[in-house]
């Protein structure tokens, strides 16, 4: 257990706080992009409420892509990943812990900032609760599915754009159900079914993504 706790969890947390700029930049990007919309399309609440859920979710996906690479990039380039693979630890669990840390340092600050973003876009309280629920279920999904693509592109130089091209289409279903949930909340309609679908996607990712990521990392080593 201490191998996972000290060797992976504590290590990645230490590194994340050592490289604060890499943590803060995607968050700043998110806040700035969302704040551009009230300026760009005007402060009328009716318009902002209509575009709000979509804007926040698109910005969240784009900003998560910016920080996604640091999940495995440094470990791959400095050789730490080789040492991890030769440590005898279960690589699926290692990957799961790494993703959890990544989610903690990238998505949790986003969740904390979300009331501010909702205020920028004149969301009602009901809409905000729906948004929070979709972010809570959707951000781990982004981290897990994103990690598969990071594993595949980690050996490619300047894989950042490739990563975005691979992942953006994959996140379309998530975007559809997440924004639809918030729209339903705006109309005082139940949105449990949309949340259930996102939760189902999340559970599927929890079950399968560690294996896919492990495999993709092994392929990258070859």
């Amino acid at each position, binding site marked *: 257990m201490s*191998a996972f*706790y000290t060797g992976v969890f504590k290590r990645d947390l230490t590194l994340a706080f050592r490289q604060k700029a890499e943590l803060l930049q995607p968050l700043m990007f998110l806040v700035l992009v969302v704040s551009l919309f009230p300026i760009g399309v005007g402060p009328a609440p009716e318009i902002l409420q209509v575009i709000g859920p979509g804007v926040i979710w698109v910005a969240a996906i784009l900003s998560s892509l910016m920080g996604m690479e640091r999940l495995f990039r440094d470990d791959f380039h400095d*050789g730490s990943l080789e040492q991890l693979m*030769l*440590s*005898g*630890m279960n690589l699926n669990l290692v990957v799961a812990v790494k993703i959890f840390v990544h989610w903690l340092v990238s998505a949790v600050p986003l969740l904390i900032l979300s009331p501010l973003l909702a205020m920028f876009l004149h969301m009602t309280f009901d809409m905000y609760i729906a948004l929070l629920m979709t972010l809570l279920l959707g951000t781990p999904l982004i981290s897990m599915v994103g990690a598969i693509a990071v594993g595949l592109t980690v050996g490619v130089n300047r894989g950042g754009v490739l990563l975005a091209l691979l992942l953006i289409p994959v996140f379309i279903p998530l975007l559809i159900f997440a924004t639809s949930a918030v729209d339903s909340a705006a109309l005082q309609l139940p949105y449990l079914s949309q949340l259930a679908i996102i939760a189902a996607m999340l559970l599927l990712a929890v079950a399968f993504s560690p294996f896919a990521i492990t495999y993709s990392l092994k392929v990258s080593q070859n």
Partner: protein
Amino acid sequence: MSGLSASQLTCIKRDRVLFKALSLQVSKGDLLYLRGPNGAGKTSLLRILTGLSLPEEGDVVFDGVSIFSSHSNYTEKLVYLGHKSALNPALSAVENLHFWAAQHRVSIKTANLYEVLDTLGLVGLEEVPVKFLSAGQQRRVALSRLWLKTAELWVLDEPFTALDVEGVSLLEKLFANHCAAGGMIITTSHQALSSMAGKYRTYDLEYNL
């Protein structure tokens, strides 16, 4: 059969056959010195011998169990140091080694860590982020893993790179001690090993077009 034996290994990279039907055997107390020109496949061979890459054909067996099988405890008996140092530049030497030791289930006290770094001539640099160390000092930090983990087999890719004369002789003495104690070493190097490293066998890889 104890020791490491590779049989009928074939490695193909980008349609080029690096080596074909390669077999080698390392027994207790052996130091195998792998030679060959750039691009001959030394690193590829070492990565196959550690299990990081899969050979196109052939098998590697350690103490009678294939290293590619799922119930092999090969990694417990192995230290591999590639030409990448596996040190995160933002972490200090002590942090890097502390986390590495945890991953490899090596229990060491921080005092021991300082002792090992002391042996390697890194006094006063233990808490400095690795990116501020010179190439040779970084190599010394990477090599300190040989002192930390007790493993039978060492697989080392160019361990002498960037080391000064003193560092080279320190490492060669360590090689001799390890082999005398029944350990096994497979290493590549472009500079010849001196007599301090003890007896060794050479294995030459040729460059095939």
